[in-house]
């Protein structure tokens, strides 16, 4: 029961979703819609679970006054402030532009996120500098291809036309071929894995007892 039931659910739901792809009947569409709705609801509960473990972890740090507990407090304040200003105005009003909820979003959340993401510009430069050394054939190929692509943004005078041609060639021939083959492989591998999951051949993720 403890093991068979979940496996049966996996197989049942999985095969229903699979078969549904081929059956255009209305009843199946309705059932399918329900299944989609349900996954969304379950997702909302999973989020609650995530919030619970997050607050739990942070609260523990604050209570135990362990190293950096002040920062955990900052996170907790951010979390509850957001929930408070989100819930207090009447239904969905808070999601409108111009509310405190949206102001915090726009002036605290967006800038931090964008700044974190832009750190990648520095990382990519240092990774390129460090790793793009013509040590082996493969490294050289990688390096040359990357440099040609990067040069498309650099005005090179008459050489720009040549480079643009090379860029187009790389993007539409080897790049495209590489991606085709890559996706063919991934498509087959993922399908095989999904099938093994549905058939219960691969069931390690369910645990033992």
């Amino acid at each position: 029961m403890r093991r068979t039931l979940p496996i049966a659910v996996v197989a049942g739901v999985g095969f229903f979703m699979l078969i549904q792809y081929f059956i255009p009947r209305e009843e199946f569409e309705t059932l399918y819609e329900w299944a989609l709705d349900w996954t969304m609801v379950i997702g909302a509960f999973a989020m609650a679970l995530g919030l619970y473990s997050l607050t739990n972890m942070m609260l523990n740090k604050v209570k135990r006054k362990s190293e950096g507990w002040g920062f955990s407090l900052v996170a907790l304040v951010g979390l509850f402030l957001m929930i408070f200003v989100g819930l207090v105005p009447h239904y969905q009003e808070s999601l409108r532009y111009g509310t405190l909820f949206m102001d915090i979003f726009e002036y605290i959340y967006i800038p931090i996120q964008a700044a974190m993401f832009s750190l990648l510009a520095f990382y990519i430069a240092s990774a390129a500098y460090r790793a793009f050394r013509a040590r082996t054939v493969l490294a050289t190929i990688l390096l040359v291809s990357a440099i040609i692509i990067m040069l498309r943004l650099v005005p090179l005078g008459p050489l720009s036309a040549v480079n643009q041609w090379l860029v187009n060639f790389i993007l539409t021939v080897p790049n495209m071929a590489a991606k085709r083959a890559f996706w063919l492989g991934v498509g087959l591998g993922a399908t095989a894995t999904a099938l093994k999951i549905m058939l219960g051949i691969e069931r390690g993720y369910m645990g033992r007892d």
Partner: protein
Amino acid sequence: MIIFPCSKAPRYRPFLRVVFLLICILLIDPSWSLAQEDLTESWFNPNRVNMLVFLVFFFGVIIYFIRRAKKGKSLFIRRIAGLDAIEEAVGRATEMGRPVLFVPGIEDVNQIQTVAAMIILGNVAKMVAGYDIPLFVPICRPFVVPVAEERVKEGYASAGRPDAYNRDNVRYISDEQFAYAAGVQGIMLRDKPMANLLFGSFFAESLMLAETGFLTGAIQVAGTANIHQLPFFVVACDYTIIGEELFATSAYLSKEPKLLGSLKGSDLAKAVIMGILALGAILVSFGVIEFKNWFFIQ
């Protein structure tokens, strides 16, 4: 072209024949291949015959090879270099007595890549279990936590060390991509794991993680089927597992013959695809487009 190697699997011969006949009927019967205006009353969408054929063929070969492997027929599978790299990295970590870090990507558990990562995680746990070094698994999606916990627990148990399992090492960090990346970076800088294993579905945070890992001097093995993150793993990690190799690794690591059967199956499918491609290209070059058009999916 013989699609099903029937002669070698006598038990399945009748079944496969029925399937084969059914497909032939579907292909020949014109009433199926004519698209109808209103399909809400019918039991089969004729526009998807090509999908069905391929699905049945692919499932057929995979199940066939899995059965064959179960019977004990040996299947040759080439050594996947990434496997050595994982073992080497874990080995180094145990020698040095430093932790192992396993990052399962940032997508939810209903993504196949995440499930593949979970399968790898179980085997890594099995490798680590014998030595008293921690295995950290920071997690981005709440749904992945229970699955990862089960996998690690099972890996430890199957190595005979259920006591070594520490629940606190499998931790949920944040749903938020960069907050998660920052959390993982924290683990890398503080706990200094010797082996960083990054498997699953990664996005922009891939470079952050791989660069920080490089700074700490860890041995890094990464694998993903997200093509746009592979360049960064290739550049910043010691070993990269590319695309389908991720799924192959998950099958190979478990060392169960029946799981390997599916590799053989998808290899056969690849050979068939190459044949179809060659045939299609030749036919198209001579102006015959019907064959190509049959592969069009609406």
